[in-house]
């Protein structure tokens, strides 16, 4: 077996072809433009409905309007809400100078954060299984500096369908496959729930569903794609924040949108996941963000661990030879005895 060029990392021209699909459609993907997301969560609902994704808990997290919390085995779209005390370009929130008091977001978020860390999975429950935060003390709306400008960042997160998908690389059963569309899908009749993909994913997307025992994540609506339809989330999105299409065309559209935003004063706008030279070889689902990736809970420099696999095996080989040598030497009798 011969390894193709850039089979473990780096840019790949034809992902589906590299995976063995001879004749295949162009690579399809998502461009999620967070600058027009209104946080309606229609994507979350449409995804659950179409894919029959079970309930992941109906609890209120007690902070922001995000009660999903995270992507998980039972949340394949997740809308993040971030309130920031700053202005979006020339937008006037209309409350500067008014006696509305400071935002309570930071205080409540701090309480929920520390409660989450005490949860059995350290907060990994979110998006996958019910999480009951318990009693969250009320935060008095204390006097403080007047509220100045503010902005809401909203972002519908999803599986990135990486060019070099760590989940797919490490899957020992072949349950995770690259489809003809270049997307990454778990075959539920194959997965035996080994959990390797969960720890391999540099984006914290895929997870194992308790009770079910198998790994689940966004399929980019593989069944709908096969039928010539767009994914349920993109179909439901009322502002075209979620755009589905050929990845090349989406890249072009995203670059145009980025330029337009910057021209209108949104200097902090940036693309995330579109760069084929990044640590995962670029993503099939990429984003336009209005702040650093970390603010949205995204890794700032995601890397597919398999990139270093040859070096890891080399180290293991040296260690294995060392063990063999140690065992041999242990049976060498000291001469003087």
């Amino acid at each position, binding site marked *: 077996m011969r390894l193709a060029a850039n089979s473990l990392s780096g840019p790949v021209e034809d992902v589906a072809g590299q995976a063995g699909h001879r004749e295949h459609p162009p690579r399809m993907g998502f461009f999620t433009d967070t600058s027009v997301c209104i946080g309606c969560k229609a994507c979350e609902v449409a995804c659950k409905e179409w894919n029959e994704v079970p309930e992941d808990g109906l609890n209120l997290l007690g902070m*922001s309007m995000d009660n999903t919390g995270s992507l*998980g085995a039972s949340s394949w779209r997740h809308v993040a809400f971030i309130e920031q*005390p700053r202005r979006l370009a020339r937008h006037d929130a209309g409350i500067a100078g008014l006696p509305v008091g400071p935002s309570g977001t*930071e205080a409540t*978020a*701090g*309480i929920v*954060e*520390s409660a989450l*860390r005490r949860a059995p999975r*350290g*907060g*990994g429950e979110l998006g996958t299984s019910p999480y009951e935060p318990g009693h969250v003390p009320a935060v008095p709306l204390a006097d403080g500096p007047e509220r100045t400008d503010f902005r809401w960042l909203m972002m519908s997160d999803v599986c990135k369908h990486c060019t070099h998908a*760590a989940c797919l690389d*490490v*899957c*020992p*059963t*072949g349950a995770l496959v690259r489809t003809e569309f270049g997307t990454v899908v778990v075959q539920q009749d194959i*997965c*035996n*729930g*080994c*959990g*390797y993909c969960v*720890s391999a*994913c540099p*984006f*914290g*997307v895929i*997870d*194992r569903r308790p009770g079910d*025992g198998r*790994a689940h994540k966004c399929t980019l609506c593989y069944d709908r794609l096969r039928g010539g339809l767009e994914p349920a989330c993109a179909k439901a999105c009322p502002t075209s924040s979620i755009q589905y299409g050929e990845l090349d065309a989406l890249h072009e559209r995203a670059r145009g949108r980025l330029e337009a935003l910057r021209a209108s004063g949104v200097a902090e706008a940036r693309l995330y996941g579109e760069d084929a030279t990044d640590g995962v070889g670029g993503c099939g689902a990429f984003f336009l963000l209005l*702040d*650093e*990736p*970390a*603010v*949205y*809970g995204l*890794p700032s420099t*995601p890397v597919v*661990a*398999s990139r270093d*696999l040859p*070096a*890891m*095996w080399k*180290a*293991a080989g040296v*260690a*294995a030879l*060392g*063990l*063999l040598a*140690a*065992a041999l030497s*242990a*049976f060498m009798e000291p001469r003087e005895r």
Partner: protein
Amino acid sequence: MSTTNGRDARAERGPAGASARERRGAPQDGSAEMAMVARARPASYYGRAVLKPPVWGEDIAYYFFLGGLSAGASLLAVGADQTGRSALRRGGRLGALGSLGLGMFFLVKDLGRPERFHHMLRVAKLTSPMSVGTWILSAYGAACGMAAAAEVWPKRLAPRPAGRLLAATGRPAGLAAGLLAPVVAAYTAVLLADTAVPAWNAARRELPFVFTASAAASAGGLGMIVAPPSEAAPARRLAQYGAIVELAASRRLEARREVALEPYLFGNAGRLLNRASALTAAGVLGSMLAGRRSRVAAVASGAALLAGGMYERLGILRAGVASTTDPRYVNGG
């Protein structure tokens, strides 16, 4: 990354308050110097984890320990077979099969769908250390099984065809198991390193040495228990080599002072790993001082080495989990 684009400090610190980080971030054992001191809070989504915590429970640490033990025991058995140490050979072969079997039980039990364990055998994937490991384990398990069968085949049934076959294949099977054993001990380190888990991935150069050395120390401990002191000199030496390399590799992890390696030093994982080092050191010292003369001391030293190996794997597992629950290890800060 901060202040350069003229944003105010509060926005830089992300949406959530700094309080939780500062309360929680500092290690509880007083070694706060290494951790962050009242640093500006790095950007994160409400302090949430970026990664998913591993779904692997303690079962997987038991498997890592038992697999390594089995590998080391197979090596001891080969040496014992070649040098005429029958008790060490017998204990090594049976110990190797027993610990492998028990390890496989934990491995399958930790699956989300244990009844589908054989799905591992439907593909062979070079990009998956777990797949590579499955095939190595299959070959190793067969060799291990034949060597152990030769050991327990009743004497009175020796003239039967099966008995003659086992008598002929016992030694080559043991040798095959011994040759595969180092890979069995080392591949699990690649399995952990080949993840996005910060503490495991950052230790990718050291982990294979920790794992093979720990396998040597554990197997040395087993050898001291199953063989009389007169036969156990190689086991004592193997334990010494293993303990030295294991302790050196752990030191190196500490010396690197990398943020992603902090979980090995602090908290629950740090305590387990300290216990592992103490038990391993005690086991080796005991074997050196009294292991040659007293069977009781040899057994006690061997037990300490086994416990040390077990805590080593548990500590490594816990450190990995801890490194996924804090966004700092992924996005810095």
